[in-house]
């Protein structure tokens, strides 16, 4: 979004493709930002308004590029759309949701709760338009959903479409997915209910999340007051993600703040290898560290087992105390890393071994921004998006390659 808005506000036409059902990406799913603990919804709203007010930006959701050909200044991008089963006639009145009887996993909340099979992706969705879940397509329920719509917006016959776009430059701002925590076998994610991931923690702490913002144990809904945050869950690990995902340390400091903000008698332990509160973010680390109820344990947790009452038990070595521990908690949060979105139609020469799209030294006009280009935080992603926007419009202008 940042790259699109910056290029458009400089006077260039932009087509913004989004594979998902709404703009906003991972940021829309965050509860707060570090270090200010402010709400991402705030900047999101500004950018949504900038897009709404700018006719130079054409937004296509549920659309992904399948092939890019051509050269600087003249690319052909073949794109494919997947059906939403709800067209632009939708007013977001919500009658379709009332007609739906099936509940489907709520992707916005990482499947921690459910929504009706006709749903608004989230309260700030852009476009503000419902979606009919493919799960009910072909059932009588879908017909009921269709007939509930007064505006003829439900189109059950929508089919995937393929068409071409002609553009001067391409920016990959395709972001990331949380690393699959089930691959961290010794951590029991998926088996122990009270072991969750950092992205799930964001939803747990958010008012629009499955617990309406209360940090509760998934197993029994009890308040989670003894919480362990496990850093480098997958990152900095040659068996998983070899790189450091950069944001997880700071995100966990923020998670400590979430817990401490809710419960006066809470205890948060952060298990880490190095706390990478780089540059000015050091102050955030210092502030969290000043809280006696947040403890830092230099230890990569070895394994997690399930103890009495569903309590996850952490096993490992506290390296500074040279002590082997077995400690139980109400809730354990795995700070899983960022994995670049795969499956992009880009040449291997344009990516590094991890799948990040990196400068590749040809004279083309294919750029990357944000986490598509490397593990970055929000501010750095906006920086890189703004820079990518300039490189892209240089190509649109036909300027010299640089």
């Amino acid at each position, binding site marked *: 979004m940042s790259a699109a808005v910056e290029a458009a506000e400089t006077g260039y036409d932009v087509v913004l493709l989004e594979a998902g059902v709404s703009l906003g990406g991972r940021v829309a799913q965050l509860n707060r930002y570090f270090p200010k603990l402010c709400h991402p919804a705030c900047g999101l709203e500004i950018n949504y308004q900038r897009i709404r007010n700018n006719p130079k930006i054409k937004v296509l959701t549920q659309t992904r590029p399948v092939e890019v050909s051509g050269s600087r200044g003249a690319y052909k991008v073949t794109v494919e759309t997947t059906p939403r089963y709800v067209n632009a006639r939708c007013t977001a009145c919500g009658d379709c949701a009332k007609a739906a009887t099936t509940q489907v996993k709520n992707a916005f909340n990482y499947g921690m709760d459910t929504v009706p099979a006709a749903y608004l992706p989230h*309260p700030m969705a852009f476009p503000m338009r419902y979606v009919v879940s493919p799960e009910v397509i072909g059932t009588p329920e879908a017909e009921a959903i269709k007939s509930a719509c007064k505006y003829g917006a439900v189109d059950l016959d929508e089919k995937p479409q393929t068409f071409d776009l002609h553009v001067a430059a391409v920016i990959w701002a395709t972001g990331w997915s949380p690393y699959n925590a089930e691959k961290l076998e010794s951590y029991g994610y998926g088996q122990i209910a009270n072991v969750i991931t950092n992205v799930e923690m964001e939803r747990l702490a958010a008012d629009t999340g499955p617990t309406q913002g209360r940090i509760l144990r998934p197993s029994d809904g009890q308040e989670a007051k003894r919480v362990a945050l496990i850093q480098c869950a997958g990152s900095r690990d040659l068996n998983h993600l070899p790189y450091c995902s950069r944001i997880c340390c700071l995100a966990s400091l923020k998670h400590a703040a979430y817990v401490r903000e809710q419960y006066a008698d809470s205890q948060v332990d952060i298990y880490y290898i190095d706390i990478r509160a*780089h540059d000015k973010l050091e102050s955030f680390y210092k502030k969290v560290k000043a809280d006696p109820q947040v403890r830092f344990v230099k230890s990569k947790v070895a394994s997690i087992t399930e103890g009495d009452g569903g309590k996850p038990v952490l096993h490992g070595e506290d390296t500074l105390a040279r002590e082997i521990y077995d400690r139980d908690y109400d809730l354990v949060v795995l700070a899983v890393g960022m994995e670049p979105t795969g499956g992009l139609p880009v040449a291997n020469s344009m990516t590094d071994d991890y799948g990040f799209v990196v400068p590749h030294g040809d004279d083309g006009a294919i750029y990357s921004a944000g986490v598509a280009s490397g593990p970055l935080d929000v501010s750095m992603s906006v920086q890189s998006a703004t820079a990518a926007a300039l490189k892209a419009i240089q190509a649109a202008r036909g300027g010299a390659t640089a």
Partner: protein
Amino acid sequence: MSAETKKPGVYLCSGCGIGDAVPMAALEKVATREYKIPAERCKTHDYLCGEEGLAMIRADIESGEVNQAIIAACSPRVNVDKFRFDGTQVVRANLREQVIWMTEPGKDDTEMLAADYLRMALVEARKVGLPSRYEGESYSERILVVGGGLSGLTAAREAATMGYEVLLIESTSVLGGHSRRWSKRTPHLPPYREPQPNDMEELVAAVKGESRIKVCLNTRVTKTSGAPTDFTVELTQEDGAVTEERVGAIIMATGWRPYDASKLGHLGYGISPDVVTSVQFEEMLATGAPKRRSDGNAPKTVAFLQCAGSRDDDHLPYCSSVCCSASLKQAIQIREADPSTSVYIVYEEMRTPGVAEEFFRAAQAAGVIFIKGKVKGVTAQDGLTVKVDDELLREEVPLAGLDMVVLATGMVPNAVLPVDDDGEPLPECDINPMSPIPVAGYAGEQPEAPTGQPCVTYKGAPILNLQYRQGPHVPILADGFSDSHFICFPYETRRTGIYTCGPVRRPMDMAESAEDATGAALKAIQAVRAISQGRALHPRSGDLSFPKINLNACTKCRRCTVECPFGAIDETEEGYPIVNPTRCRRCGTCMGACPVRTISFDNYTVDMMTSMIKAVEVPDEEEEKPRVLILACQNDAYPALDMAGIARTPLSPYVRTLPVRCLGSVSLLCVSDALSSGYDGVMLMGCKSGDDYQCHFVRGSAMAQERMMKVGETLQSMMLEKERVETFEIAIADAKNLPDIIGKFMETIDSVGPNPFKGM
């Protein structure tokens, strides 16, 4: 568009359940009877945003019957594209999200609420003007880049590539800054394991060879006056020669300097010529293999001490970010040159975020030894000895027999020009990064607030020496770095058209600085383009309106010049305000500040706001239907109310919400007018202020809060209770909390009783 030429058309939507919850005929009557809209220009449709509905509106516009469309339907936040009719002013009344989705259908209160929002829109339509853009005499699109290091050179080259003329100012006699002297750079390209060639010479050559870039060496900016697209900068050369240049936007890329090593005596600086800083060591590497200064021999054992001055409350409280990778690079270079050299890196946290982890591993594989611990002292015994509290061996270890010790000194931003003269004023720093984090409470005793110096102030002269009423500096944060303090919008400084980039903004390495500078070049280009078309910059991008001051009524109180968060308003010698429209971001804080309503925008005035407030029908006391006015920030509180509606959260039908550009634009007159026209209370909903502010106009909500602290006097003079007016900090994410917040306020109003002004 004057009142006489306005041809308003009213379009009521009965879709989405509006028609089921509210009698549309009653609303039509409000338009046609109360506001005398001809019946043929007041239309109800059951699907206004559908093709037919839109065609109906378009037909009226095309026939010339209507040139102002009043859309009473959904929230103004949605369907913006559908209800956009070029050349026609659109006014929206939010009957869906903030009426029928939060109140009970079919009730009188719901109908009254909808009718009042329609009235407010009708009044807004009467009062609102079509903004005419600001016309300057001529616009300079030239870009000034201050600083000829990596960031400045990159910004200059990127802007020139886009076809823009660039003036590049460098205070020393050479281009290239610090990084030109680096032997190699830390890797930014895959596989991220090897120190990479320093390509600064190529960049310097590219800039020198670019005809659109004019380079001025040995030059400082001694004065910057004017405004974006029309800045006049006074340049002073080392020899005293002064010239003036005109530029449109400014990129401040003044970089950094190493922390003063003479303050690092505790790390051994000064005890031996063989204790050097990382910058000094880099210079040695650049000229060949490092040699001991003491005897000219190549060192066989070298220790790097990390965080030399950084992350240290007595020195630099922040992490300088680049030092870990810089030491890894130097360590690898030593091991490559002579694999028999023993190299140690003493660190507390190894900070190689992102793909730089690869470089950490490369250094380990190269045999560099990493020792985690605090340095307890450095002595010149047994060669050099570093005493380390080795946290992993859990003992104090003398690291003895060292030939050299390298201090990984931190980065100090050049947000000011360092001066030796004690007489120089200190710049004012704001935004303390150490403001505490909210906690529910403590199990035991409350700890002391985190220590550490909250504010690093450097004695120094301003870089740009802005001739602004609000001072010569681009705002400097308490950690010593320049704006911005936004996470989502890191380029937005509080000085319009001036962008900071590179390490003056945040410690960053070469790759990041280059990227940051490229982004800053885009912002500068965007600024000159938008401004020369009269359009506002972020966050009200594209807005053509700008503040106009009626000097005849001005009392020279100077509140507008003081409160403008962007320093857009200067003063004449007589003390009158002068608006620099191209510096303005259109928040309206000046308008809110003015006690005598001399400041207005074509489409946003105090008169418009108070008229809209008064358009609401306030029931008599006997009806026991209180009225509470909510003045809600358009960006956060208003969307929060929408979100509450989308979640179908029941809210009191007695509130009437007026969205405002920023709470800073709310004049006390709006509050007093509301109370004198019978509202029982006023809720002011703005963004979070303070160090972790969320206000997009930085100081708008803070200014409003300050102003409202004085509302007590107004209330006292009206003999009203102070509880009737309250300020709230509301984020979009507070939607869930609104019923509680509004509910509590309604209780307060109930307990205070009805406003005695009702019906007067």
